[in-house]
């Protein structure tokens, strides 16, 4: 009896171990390090990676970090658990993170940012660094430029309130977007900002300082107010109210356009001196921004759920021994395009064609196809706007249907 009891106990203890070995059917495990785990964009990416992971037979796990040491610690933990690759969304110390992962023979892809020239020089030949995919400074500049152009030419706006987000802290992404807005306005012959009109001079003037409306001179346009930072407190509302009351009823934002729009909407509806306003921003293609179109938001430019695909393609290609590199074998830095919606219907269409329920634009089949492709093909995919992205998806699926293949590994 005692022996039977011991055997049963041993069997019970072994069951969890057996379930571990049989339940873990996936062979590829990817760890994701991120700082932001709450924004609409972060949640959309998480859902995308999990959905595509199920489709292609790999697993993804997420760790939120807030420092370089936390990144390295998380990488070491992933390595000890047998993960093969890291998607690095957080970038407190890119070099330290890549070095830590490489020491554990884990691949690292940087799918939401670009290393600086100095960082790139140190990383590009590391065999475990697979490259980066993110909008380049040119793309960021163009995003701001196109938005300002849309509101001036499409909506006949002349009086602006600018929201510079983290431009004050020197965020290159936000500075470029802001410079793009001003560069468009400065194409007007009567307009300049602090005596300069060209792109690079504007970037220098704005970096770490933001916009001083007093330095904006124009016979055509007005910058009534400028605000930055992300503490939407009473001081912020006071300032936004003053700017809207002063006539700056076209709000151009470099981020957090949803929050700014909601506050502006409240001000408009409760303040007789503000008749109406329009706003636009560069941030993300999410459902919350679609709702903002009912409040006064008229232009949304941003990353979308499938924007994670290129990072995954680089990772899966390397794991399949088909690493995608530059001609000289170094890790690529790939420019990523934004999607742009200038009306609610278009944004909703983007959300419909890029979600887990009705299918992602860059789904498993697309990733599978491009993971076996060339760098040039990947660059084309990254540079696609919404229409082109849908064409890419349709072409891949038509090819798969024609050859009778399904998606998946």
């Amino acid at each position: 009896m005692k022996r039977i009891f011991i055997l049963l106990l041993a069997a019970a203890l072994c069951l969890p171990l057996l379930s571990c070995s049989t339940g873990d059917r996936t062979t590829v495990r990817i760890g994701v390090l991120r700082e932001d785990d709450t924004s609409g964009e972060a949640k959309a990416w998480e859902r995308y990676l999990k959905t595509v992971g199920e489709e292609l037979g790999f697993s993804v796990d997420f760790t939120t970090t807030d420092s370089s040491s936390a990144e390295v610690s998380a990488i070491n933990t992933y390595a000890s658990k047998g993960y093969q690759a890291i998607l690095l969304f957080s970038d407190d110390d890119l070099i330290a993170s890549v070095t830590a992962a490489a020491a554990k023979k884990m691949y690292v892809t940087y799918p939401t940012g670009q290393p600086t020239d100095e960082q790139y020089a140190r990383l590009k030949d590391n065999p475990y660094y697979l490259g980066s995919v993110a909008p380049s400074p040119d793309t960021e500049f163009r995003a701001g430029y196109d938005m300002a152009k849309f509101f001036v030419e499409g909506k006949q706006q002349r009086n602006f309130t600018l929201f510079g987000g983290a431009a004050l802290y020197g965020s290159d992404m936000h500075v470029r977007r802001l410079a793009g807005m001003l560069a468009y306005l400065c194409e007007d012959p009567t307009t300049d900002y602090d005596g300069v009109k060209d792109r690079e001079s504007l970037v220098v003037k704005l970096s770490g300082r933001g916009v001083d409306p007093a330095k904006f001179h124009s016979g055509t346009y007005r910058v009534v107010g400028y605000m930055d930072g992300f503490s939407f407190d009473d001081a912020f509302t006071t300032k936004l109210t003053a700017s809207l009351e002063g006539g700056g009823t076209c709000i151009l934002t470099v981020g957090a356009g949803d929050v700014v729009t909601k506050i502006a909407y409240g001000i408009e509806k409760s303040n007789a001196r503000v008749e109406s306003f329009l706003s636009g921003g560069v941030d993300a293609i999410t459902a919350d921004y679609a709702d903002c179109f009912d409040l006064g938001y008229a232009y949304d430019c941003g990353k979308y759920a499938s924007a994670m695909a290129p990072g995954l393609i680089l990772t899966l290609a390397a794991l399949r021994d088909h690493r995608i590199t530059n001609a000289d074998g170094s890790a690529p830095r790939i420019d990523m395009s934004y999607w742009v919606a200038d009306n609610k219907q278009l944004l909703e269409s983007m959300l419909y064609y890029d979600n887990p329920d009705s299918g992602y634009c860059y789904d498993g089949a697309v990733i599978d196809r491009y993971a076996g492709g060339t760098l040039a093909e990947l660059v084309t995919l990254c540079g696609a706007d919404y229409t082109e992205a849908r064409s890419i998806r349709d072409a891949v699926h038509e090819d798969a249907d024609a050859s009778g293949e399904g998606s998946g590994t």
Partner: protein
Amino acid sequence: MTAARTRRPFPIRRCVGVVIIPLLCWAVMALACRLAGIRLFSGLSTWQLWLRGLTYVLLLSFGVSINMHTGRFDFSAGAVMLFGGVVGAMLAYGRGWGPWAMLVISLVVGAAAGCVTGVLYVLLRLPPMIIGLGMTLLLEGVVAILTDGCKPVGFGTNADYYRFSVNMPAMLVIGGLALLVMTVLFHYTRFGYDYRALQTGQRIAVNAGVDERTNAVICYTVAGAMLGAAGALSICGTNGVTPTINFSTIASMFACFLPLFFSGFIGKYVNKQAAILLGCVGYEFIQIGFGQLSFSIASFTADVYKVIEAVILVAFLIYLNNEGFIQDIVTFRRFRKRTT
């Protein structure tokens, strides 16, 4: 405590002590705005924002002060605000009940959350900081579940909720009621008497028959109610909220530190609740002034005024901790003592 310390100040000195901080805040900000070529209050909208901010920070300060002044630093204040506000917003907007209902729901939900914190504190006998941090994670998690993974909570195209936050009579009623409840509860009831007894000497109070556990649970509950109401005003004021997790709610309680330290000084001349109100009045003058200056002077950015606010806080703490010494210097008391 010496006889000199317990003696009530002369009426004039008392009046000056009561109004000096709000008056100073107003005068400094008005002067700064005048020098920048603008006015501190540029119209009705500025007064609306001032009163909204005052009511919000008053509720927050009341909520935080209740436990802080008895040595229980509750880190879950921000999470209670978020939890109360989000539940209130979801129910009131979802069912079309309007902003007053949202306020009441948030208040009740906040009180319930505070009560749970209090009961846990009493039952588990863990330090308040640990309980507060645990409750923060718990409440943030519940909010994340309620909002389907921290999706934004808003009011769509319904502007009634924002309008409510800038409705001056409504804000006066809320602020007035909060002040009345706090004053009656903490100064004219047995509970308040016990609270102050525990505050000044816990062992003696307990030996004298004060039930410290019940008192602690009631404190957490009342604080939760105030914080829940503050959460509702906060969400109405920004026309929605995107919930966040991982202790990110803790920072929201820091907005009340400056008014609370102001009230530490004013409290020498008037009862604690009125002192908190006056501290908040001064703080809101600073907030509105910062907004106006920031609009007029580009280099006066959000970061700059956060630093200035921190400097004021530190300077004020230095003053409070060295008050006697500073007064001696200002009035030449030591010099006069030596010469006589």
